[in-house]
C-alpha cells in the first residue's frame, strides 16, 4: 500500500479528492482532468487510487481520486487506501467532496479530515440535485465555520469547477491562509488531548517539514483511541513510531489509567470522540442549511416501494434483467450477421490479394485462416451484444438500481454466511470477472471477501455471454418462430444466470461452513437516491470505454491464439495433427462429461480469454483447421450437429462454460488481491471440479433416460 501511495506523489503539487462514497469524487476528477474514471450511482464504485493531472494558472497539479469512506477510522481495504492517502500522501491540498443532499453525515468526514490536515477545500457537490429537492445551503456561512474555502459545484454538468480550481490553487500554493476548525470534546478528553498534543510537539519527531502537515491533535486523539494501525502506518512512512517513544508511551498509559479511574473504557473514548464530531456537524448543518420541503425524498421512497416491495421487488428485478437480455439478444442478431458477411467479403478479398502476391500457402493459411478468421469471429459475435449490453447495464447502474439488487437479495447471502455486498461484486462480474474480483475490496471482512472472490467466476462475464447466447439460440430456441425466439432465448439466458447465482450461494454456504468458517460480520449498505442517467453520455462512454476496451483485449488474445491453433491443427505427427492428438487424449473425459475432446481442448486453450472458446471449437471441427464460411448460426448449427452435438452436449457446454476455471487475467487478479496462492488455486480448482461433476451427472442422467 505504501508504494501505491508514494507512486502517485511526484514533483508537482498533489491534490487529493476525498469524501463519502458516491458523492461524485470521480465525476469531479473526470471533469478536472478530462480523464474517464468509471462512475456509478452506488457506494464503492472506486476501490483504488487513480491519478491524473490538470493545469491551472500555469501550475501543474496531480489529482488523486481516492475511494469513498465514511470515516478515517477505516475498516475495508478501499477505505484504508483512502485514509492512507489522506494521512500520509502528503497532499498539498485536499478537496473534500460533500453531497449537498446529505450534508449532515458528510460533514462528519469533513471535520475528521480537517482535523488531520487543514489545507483543504470543501466542494459541496450535487447542488443541482439539492436545489431540486429544495435544500438551500449557505456556502459562505459554511466556509466561516470550517475555516477553509467552500465551493458549490454540480460536477456532472461542470458548474462551479473554475471556482474550485481557483480555490485549490490558492490553498495549495499557500496564497490563501486556511484556519481549519477545532472540534471541542468533553472536558476530560479535551484535557488529555491537549496534554498529549504538547508532548508530541515537544518530542520533535515531526520537525522534519515533509510531515509537519500532520496535526498533532489528530495524532494525540488516535493514540488515546488506541489506534494501532495508524502507528504502523507512521512506522512504514516515516520510519519512527509514536508508541515506541518512551515519553509519549508513558503519557498515553497515564491518560488511560486516569480514564480508568473515572470509569471511561476504550469504547467510551471512541464514543466521546464521535459524539464530539457529530455534535459539531449537527451544529454546522443546522446553521448552514435550510430545508424548504421536509419530505424531499418522497419520489425516491415511492420508487423504492415498487422496486423493493415484498410483492414486486423480486419479479421486477428478474423482469429488468430479462428485458436487458432480450434487447441484447434481439438487437445483436442483425448486426452480427451483417458483420460476418462483411468479414467474409474481406476474407475473399484477402485471399485474392495473397494469391496476387504469390504468397506461400503456409502464410496464407496462417494469417487468413488462422488469425483473420478467429479475429473476425470474435468481433462479429462479441461486439454487437457487448455494444448493447454495456450501455444498458450502465444506465441501470447510474439510475441507482444496483444497491437495490443487493438489498433485495441480502437474505440469501446472509443465509450463506456472507456479506450482502457480494451481490454488488457479482454485478461487476457481469462485465468482467477481474473487475468483480477487484470490486471485492468493498467487503470489510476478509473471510467474506475471499468467499466473494472465489465465487465471482460463477457469474458469466461478457466473454462467456455471447457463447451462451449463441448456444441457446442454436440449440434451444431455434424451433421457435421469429418474434418469440429472442424472448425465449432471453428467458433461457436468465435461467442460466439465476442458476449461476444459486451455485454461488451454495458454494458460499459450503465455504462458510468449511474452509472459511465463520458467522456473517456486520455490514451496512447505502441506498443512494435515484438519479436520472445522462442517456447520451452514458451510451457514448460505455461504448468508447468499456466495449472497445474489452474488445481490444479479446482481439489481442484472439489474433495470436488463431495462429497457434492453426499451427496446432497443421503440424502433423505421424499423420495426425497436434490438435487431433490432444483432443483424442481428452476424448474419454470429454465424453464422460457429455462433451468431447475438442470442446475440452477449446476451454483449455481459451484460458487466456473465454471469448475464443467457440472459434477454437469451430476451427478444429473443420478438418482443415480453419473456420467454415461462417455466415449464419444455422451453418454453425449444422457443423456442430455433424460433429455429434446433441442438446445434451449443448447443455453441458453451457454448464461447463459457467463453471470452469477463471481466465488468466482473473486468476492473476485473484492472486494480486488475496496475495495467496492457496485461494488462487481454490478459485481455479473449485469451479472446475464442480463443473466436471455436474456435467458428468447431467450426462449420466440423460444417458440412462
Amino acid at each position, binding site marked *: 500500500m505504501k508504494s501505491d501511495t508514494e507512486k502517485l506523489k511526484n514533483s508537482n503539487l498533489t491534490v487529493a479528492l476525498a469524501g463519502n462514497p458516491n458523492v461524485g469524487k470521480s465525476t469531479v476528477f473526470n471533469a478536472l482532468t478530462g480523464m474517464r474514471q468509471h462512475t456509478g450511482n452506488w457506494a464503492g464504485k472506486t476501490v483504488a487510487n487513480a491519478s491524473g493531472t490538470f493545469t491551472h494558472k500555469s501550475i501543474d497539479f496531480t489529482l488523486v481520486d481516492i475511494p469513498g469512506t*465514511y*470515516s478515517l*477510522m477505516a*475498516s475495508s481495504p478501499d477505505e484504508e487506501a483512502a485514509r492512507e492517502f489522506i494521512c500520509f500522501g502528503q497532499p498539498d491540498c485536499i478537496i473534500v467532496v460533500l453531497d449537498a*443532499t*446529505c*450534508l*449532515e*453525515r458528510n460533514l*462528519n468526514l469533513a471535520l475528521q479530515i480537517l482535523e488531520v490536515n487543514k489545507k483543504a477545500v470543501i466542494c459541496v457537490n450535487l447542488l443541482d440535485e439539492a436545489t431540486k429537492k429544495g435544500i438551500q445551503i449557505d456556502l459562505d456561512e459554511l466556509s466561516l465555520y470550517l475555516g477553509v474555502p467552500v465551493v458549490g459545484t454540480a460536477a456532472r454538468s461542470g458548474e462551479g469547477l473554475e471556482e474550485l480550481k481557483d480555490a485549490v490553487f490558492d490553498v495549495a500554493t499557500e496564497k490563501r491562509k486556511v484556519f481549519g476548525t477545532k472540534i471541542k470534546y468533553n472536558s476530560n478528553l479535551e484535557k488529555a488531548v491537549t496534554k498529549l498534543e504538547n508532548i508530541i510537539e515537544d518530542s520533535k519527531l515531526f520537525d522534519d517539514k515533509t510531515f509537519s502537515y500532520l496535526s498533532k491533535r489528530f495524532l494525540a486523539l488516535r493514540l488515546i483511541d488506541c489506534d494501532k494501525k495508524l502507528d504502523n502506518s507512521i512506522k512504514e512512512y516515516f520510519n519512527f513510531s509514536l508508541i515506541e517513544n518512551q515519553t509519549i508511551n508513558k503519557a498515553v498509559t497515564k491518560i488511560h489509567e486516569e480514564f480508568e479511574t473515572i470509569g471511561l473504557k476504550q*469504547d467510551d473514548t*471512541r*464514543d466521546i470522540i*464521535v*459524539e464530539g464530531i*457529530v455534535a459539531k*456537524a449537527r451544529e454546522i448543518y443546522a446553521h448552514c442549511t435550510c430545508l424548504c420541503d421536509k419530505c424531499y*425524498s418522497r419520489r*425516491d*421512497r415511492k420508487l*423504492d*416501494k415498487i422496486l*423493493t*416491495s*415484498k*410483492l*414486486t*421487488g*423480486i419479479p421486477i428485478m428478474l423482469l429488468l434483467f430479462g428485458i436487458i437480455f432480450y434487447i441484447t439478444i434481439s438487437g445483436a442478431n442483425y448486426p452480427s450477421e451483417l458483420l460476418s458477411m462483411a468479414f467474409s467479403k474481406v476474407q475473399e478479398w484477402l485471399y485474392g490479394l495473397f494469391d496476387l502476391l504469390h504468397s506461400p500457402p503456409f502464410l496464407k493459411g496462417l494469417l487468413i485462416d488462422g488469425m483473420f478468421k478467429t479475429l473476425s469471429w470474435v468481433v462479429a459475435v462479441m461486439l454487437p451484444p457487448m455494444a448493447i449490453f454495456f450501455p444498458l447495464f450502465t444506465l441501470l447502474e447510474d439510475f441507482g438500481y444496483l444497491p437495490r439488487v443487493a*438489498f*433485495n*437479495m*441480502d*437474505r*440469501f447471502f*446472509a443465509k450463506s454466511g456472507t456479506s*450482502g455486498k457480494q451481490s454488488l461484486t457479482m454485478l461487476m462480474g457481469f462485465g468482467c470477472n477481474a473487475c468483480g474480483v477487484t470490486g471485492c475490496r468493498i467487503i*470489510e471482512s476478509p473471510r467474506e471477501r475471499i468467499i466473494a472472490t472465489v465465487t465471482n467466476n460463477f457469474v458469466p462475464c461478457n466473454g462467456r455471454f455471447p457463447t451462451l447466447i449463441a448456444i441457446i439460440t442454436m440449440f434451444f430456441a431455434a424451433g421457435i418462430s421469429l418474434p418469440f425466439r429472442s424472448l425465449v432465448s432471453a428467458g433461457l439466458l436468465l435461467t442460466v444466470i439465476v442458476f449461476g447465482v444459486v451455485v454461488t450461494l451454495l458454494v458460499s454456504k459450503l465455504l462458510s461452513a468449511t474452509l472459511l468458517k465463520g458467522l*456473517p*460480520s*456486520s*455490514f*451496512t*449498505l*447505502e*441506498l*443512494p*437516491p435515484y438519479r436520472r442517467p445522462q442517456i447520451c453520455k452514458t451510451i457514448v462512454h460505455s461504448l468508447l470505454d468499456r466495449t472497445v476496451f474489452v474488445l481490444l483485449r479479446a482481439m489481442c488474445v484472439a489474433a495470436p491464439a488463431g495462429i497457434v491453433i492453426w499451427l496446432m491443427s497443421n503440424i502433423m505427427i505421424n499423420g495426425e495433427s497436434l490438435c487431433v492428438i490432444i483432443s483424442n487424449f481428452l476424448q474419454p473425459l470429454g465424453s464422460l462429461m457429455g462433451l468431447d475432446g475438442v470442446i475440452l481442448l477449446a476451454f483449455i486453450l481459451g484460458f487466456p480469454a473465454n471469448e475464443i472458446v467457440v472459434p477454437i471449437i469451430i476451427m478444429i471441427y473443420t478438418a482443415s483447421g480453419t473456420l467454415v464460411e461462417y455466415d449464419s448460426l444455422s451453418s454453425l448449427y449444422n457443423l456442430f450437429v455433424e460433429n455429434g452435438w446433441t442438446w445434451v452436449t449443448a447443455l453441458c457446454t453451457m454448464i461447463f462454460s459457467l463453471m470452469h476455471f477463471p481466465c488468466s487475467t482473473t486468476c492473476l487478479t485473484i492472486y494480486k488481491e488475496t496475495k495467496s496462492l492457496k485461494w488462487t488455486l481454490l478459485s481455479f480448482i473449485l469451479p472446475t471440479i464442480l463443473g466436471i461433476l455436474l456435467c458428468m451427472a447431467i450426462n449420466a442422467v440423460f444417458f440412462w433416460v
Partner: protein
Amino acid sequence: MNTKTISLDSLSVGDSGFVSKLLSKGELRRRMLDLGLVKGTYVESLMKSPVGGLTAYFISGAVIAIRPEDARYILINKQQ
C-alpha cells in the same frame, strides 16, 4: 411525548425514534458510529427487503440498510 425504549430491529416500518444507546462493541460499534449513529440521532424505518432480513433506515440524511442481527444492538426511544 411518550417514549418507549426498544431495539432498532423491532422498530416497525414507518415508525421512528432517537438513538438512546449502542450496545455493540468493536468493529460493529465503529461502523455504526461512522454513519453518525450516536445518542440522540433520529432514525426512521423505511422499508424491509422483499425476502425479509435487511431493513432500510433513514439516518442523518441518507438511506442505510442494516441487518437485524446488527440492528439488535442499537437501542432507540421510539416516538409514539
